[in-house]
């Protein structure tokens, strides 16, 4: 008999042998979770953005990224915004897979909406956003299903500047100049030379100049970059992302190269 009062008066489960008296044959239970079987783990990024650059300057943070989302070697989407404002204190710049960036953007937008509904003076600043993203990225990496991005989080809150990096492996670090992708090889030395030691005196114009110079060098050297870009500025007054601007390149040196210029072989 079944001694549990909760089971009295209810349909019996004859397949359950409470006293283990004999082996019970059970019908095969082939419940397939077809959806779960179709879920794939990220193996490679598809539509990608290239470098993002960011520096600390006198009034806050400046971040720059071009407007290109490449499809392998094809310059597919040429008006993509890779800088995203999160609340009034933070800007997020993403390189890597753009669909994963869109997913991260929707998560962060949900956070900002939740924060808004609290209607108290506490708001999420760049440090909190960065911590949240670090936990997210590392957790995804540990499930072998990463969000394939390198992200820069920059912001200004309560009189303090914040600039940090987090990527698909969950690696984080913070410095007064940071760059992702090719920028970390080509632009970083230029940014460091111009900024390090002078973070508190670097003016807005100087900051913009060094970022534009770095983007120019990157356009010359990075085959997956574009000469159309935006610059984001985060200061006491909030987040401002500029309109798209064009880089002034000079290809006149090509005149002197055989096969490129006017002269033939």
């Amino acid at each position, binding site marked *: 008999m079944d001694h549990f009062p909760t089971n009295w008066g209810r349909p019996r489960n004859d397949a359950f042998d409470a006293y283990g008296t004999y082996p019970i044959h059970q019908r095969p239970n082939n419940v397939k979770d077809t959806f779960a079987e179709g879920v794939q783990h990220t193996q490679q990024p598809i539509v990608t953005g290239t470098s993002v650059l960011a520096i600390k300057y006198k009034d806050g943070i400046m971040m720059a990224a071009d407007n290109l989302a490449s499809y392998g070697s094809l310059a597919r989407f040429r008006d993509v915004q890779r800088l995203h404002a999160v609340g009034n204190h933070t800007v997020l710049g993403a390189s890597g897979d753009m669909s994963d960036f869109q997913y991260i953007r929707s998560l962060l937008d949900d956070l900002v909406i939740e924060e808004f509904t*609290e209607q*108290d*003076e*506490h708001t*999420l600043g760049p*440090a*909190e956003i*960065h*911590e*949240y993203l670090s*936990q997210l990225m590392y957790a995804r990496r540990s499930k072998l299903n990463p969000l394939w991005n390198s992200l820069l989080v920059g912001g200004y809150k*309560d009189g303090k500047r914040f600039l940090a990096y987090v990527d698909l492996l969950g690696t984080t670090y913070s410095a007064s100049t940071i760059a992702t992708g090719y920028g970390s090889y080509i632009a970083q030395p230029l940014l460091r030379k111009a900024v390090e030691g002078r973070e508190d005196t670097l003016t807005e114009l100087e900051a913009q100049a060094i970022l534009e110079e770095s983007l120019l060098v990157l356009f010359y050297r990075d085959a997956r970059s574009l000469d159309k870009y935006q610059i984001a500025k985060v200061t006491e007054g909030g987040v401002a992302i500029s309109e798209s601007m064009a880089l002034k390149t000079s290809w006149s040196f090509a005149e002197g190269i055989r096969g490129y210029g006017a002269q033939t072989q």
Partner: protein
Amino acid sequence: MFRNTYDSDNTVFSPQGRLHQVEYALEAVKQGSAAVGLRSKTHAILLALKRSTGELASYQQKMYRIDDHIGIAIAGLTSDARVLSNFMRQQAMAERMIYNRPIPANRLVSSIADKAQVNTQEYGRRPYGVGFLVIGFDKTGPHLYEFSPSGNSYEYFAMSIGARSQSAKTYLEKNFESFADCSLEELITHGLHALRETLQQDKELSIKNTSIGILGPGGAHETGITAQGNFRILEDDKIDVYLQSMVPKEVEAPTVTVPPPAAGDDDVQMGDN
């Protein structure tokens, strides 16, 4: 007259529009020994009267540290208090882990208030039988909140809960305007005077039955407190110096002692304490 037929299920209103189960839960809070909370511009403190079952027994713990910047004093069912304070600690830790920031005290209190409300609306669940006084520190300064099993939470300048807490409230109402500019020692003295009002005739505050919880920069009698003034609980010998600072009972002007509300009284209102 209708009280008995409408009071066994949480999900049944009385004809007067009251939930008697929730009101009985508030009674459980009133059975607990008194706790007093008050704040100034710089500090927030909790004072609690500890009970013991007899000479041989230890005194029941009335205060819990939730995080560096949040502490609570309880009145009511201690087992319910442990469960809720554990939940609060988890929320506080999760906020630090995910967002790298101390949880704003008002949000933490809202989260347990919402949790308690579920128990007042689902069939088969009973309300929590414990009330809290919560003190917290954030960038806007110190705060004091009361949480009750009805799911209500309010912020206060000063408050008291538990047995004979009305007497303490009377003292607090008379003096609260001076609290904002008090030093830590003055604030504690006020709190002890308020707590003393809740004592029965022949009892007195001693180092054994009193505990003090403090948030804010270290006071004159404290050493080794961090700059932001992490929550600490003072008990036993440490509070002797504060007990000495109290004005002896005989010298005080006679205070109006309000008789405790009679049990089973239909005038008991939900949402108050």
